[in-house]
């Protein structure tokens, strides 16, 4: 089976985000980058699928600036076989353009199953998976918590409000992975060594996106307004509780 996993390099969850003074974006200085946490689940599921289907191969694909190759190496060290880096030529494309280019590369290379994270934790868009599916004309399942593949079909479970939905989809298909799906493996030392020699093909976004134009314009990047300092409620437990209940009802009026 020809398997692809889509990975985006994103700021570490611990990173302090600073916005540029003119509101045009995020300060890149001091940002540490990682593979998105949900993308790690996607990588794990791709490798597991390969292990269960003899003769399969996993290609990791990342679209982004040159630094994205670090994320690619991590995925290769975990066990992906080869990689494609689509250089965004520092154009920082929106979801629509990203999905157009990824879909073209997936179609050109003839992948049969694609794994993604449910969401990239930079802009928290959660759009690329669904839009890649649309441009390919494939079925999608988002928020996948459980997956079984057999006989050219997949059975995927996703969590929604009030319960779980179980889908049966024919392949090719794309799966947006949720945290509970699996436990991502760590890259082993031999894995890290091997990753250095695995092939990485480089493509250019300008060549892969066709005539796609961005659909959204972002402006006024800013930090959220500081919350006014809260109030510590003193006294013994009984007095604290009484005052809290009063404050929630009379001041905050939320109960």
């Amino acid at each position, binding site marked *: 089976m020809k398997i692809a996993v889509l990975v985006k390099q994103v700021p570490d969850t611990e990173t302090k985000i600073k916005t540029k003074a003119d509101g045009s974006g995020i300060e890149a200085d001091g940002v540490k980058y990682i593979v998105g946490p949900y993308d790690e689940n996607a990588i794990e599921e791709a490798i597991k699928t390969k292990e269960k289907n003899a003769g399969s191969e996993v290609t990791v694909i990342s679209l982004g600036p040159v630094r994205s190759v670090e994320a690619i190496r991590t995925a290769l060290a975990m066990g992906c076989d080869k990689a494609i880096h689509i250089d965004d030529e520092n154009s920082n494309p929106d979801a629509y353009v990203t999905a157009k280019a990824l879909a073209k590369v997936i179609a050109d290379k003839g992948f049969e199953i694609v794994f993604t994270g449910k969401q990239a934790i930079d802009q928290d868009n959660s759009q690329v998976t669904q839009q890649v599916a649309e441009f390919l004309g494939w079925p999608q399942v988002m928020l996948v918590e459980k997956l079984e593949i057999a006989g050219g079909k997949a059975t995927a479970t996703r969590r929604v409000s009030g319960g779980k939905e179980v889908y049966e989809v024919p392949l090719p*298909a794309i799966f947006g992975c949720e945290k509970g799906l699996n436990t991502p493996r760590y890259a082993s030392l031999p894995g890290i060594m091997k990753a250095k020699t695995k092939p990485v093909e480089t493509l250019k976004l300008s060549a892969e996106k066709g005539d796609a134009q961005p659909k959204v314009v972002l402006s006024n990047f800013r930090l959220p307004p500081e919350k006014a300092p*809260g109030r510590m409620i003193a006294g013994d437990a009984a007095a604290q509780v009484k005052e809290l209940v009063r404050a929630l009802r009379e001041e905050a009026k939320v109960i």
Partner: protein
Amino acid sequence: MGNVLIFAEHQDGKLKKTSLELASKASELAGKIGGIAEAVLIGNNIDALANELAPYGIKKVTVVHSPKLEKYNTLGYVNALAGIVKELNPDIFLATASPAGKDFFPRLAARLDTGLASDAVDLKIDGDGKLLATRPIYSGKALVDLKIPNSKPQMALIRPNSFGVGAAQAGATAEVVKKDVDVGDMKAEMKEFVKGASDKVDLTEAEIIVSGGRAMKEAANFKILQDLADVIGATVGASRAAVDSGYAPHEMQVGQTGKVVNPKLYMAFGISGAIQHLAGMRTSKVIVAVNKDPEAPIFQKADYGIVGDLFEIVPLLTAEFKKVLGE
């Protein structure tokens, strides 16, 4: 001059409250661009719900009907709605950032070759008459404004509880148009819906949440939070430490790798306030923290803080609320 369309969601034969919230906002926005607020409802035999939107400012409801849409289906919704939306030709199209909305709206935006703002928490009409959506990014560590300048409709998914439901106008009516649609090739088939154990409002839509952290010590202790939740109509959440320790299931996790919630009241019991937990609940209108440690970082985000032992405070709170709410 253009209209604002909303996707009105329903569950178990009832309109979701978030749909009324959308209706109220849509009617305000429509006023500003000189159009009307209208809605699409999609499903099988759901005509009866159409009239419930009128009191919140919806003037026209298109009921998209197909026996094949008894259950949710991504491509079924996208195939059915793409044609209807082109026909209605709204300026703005809004849906709730629910699991269904987040699933099909991005795909529909791609089908319509237009842009989408995910998880918007504020919507305005800018000076040029275009929608300006404000959305949290980097798990709420920053905000950005988003516009869709050159394509139509301008689409946005709204985080529940961002605006609240406006006042209802009794006696208001809406024009109702029923359309039978062809759902086309749906490709995926929902084999089964497994109903969750709890019939509580989902965390992502809850107006009040009480959450427990590692300090809960064991799964059985979540009972005291459940008792409190029952008294004040809340949904129970948990930190990742509580989930990883096996005290609560992953579906209860709030945070970066759990659910993003937006209640009017969030109460954190024995949760330290790690950045990844804040990522899931920082937009809560009012935050209460109860923690033994006066230095716990959660107190910096709290509107009201109590330094104390949760095992002492929670039962007292339950009793006190019972008393005052019973009066």
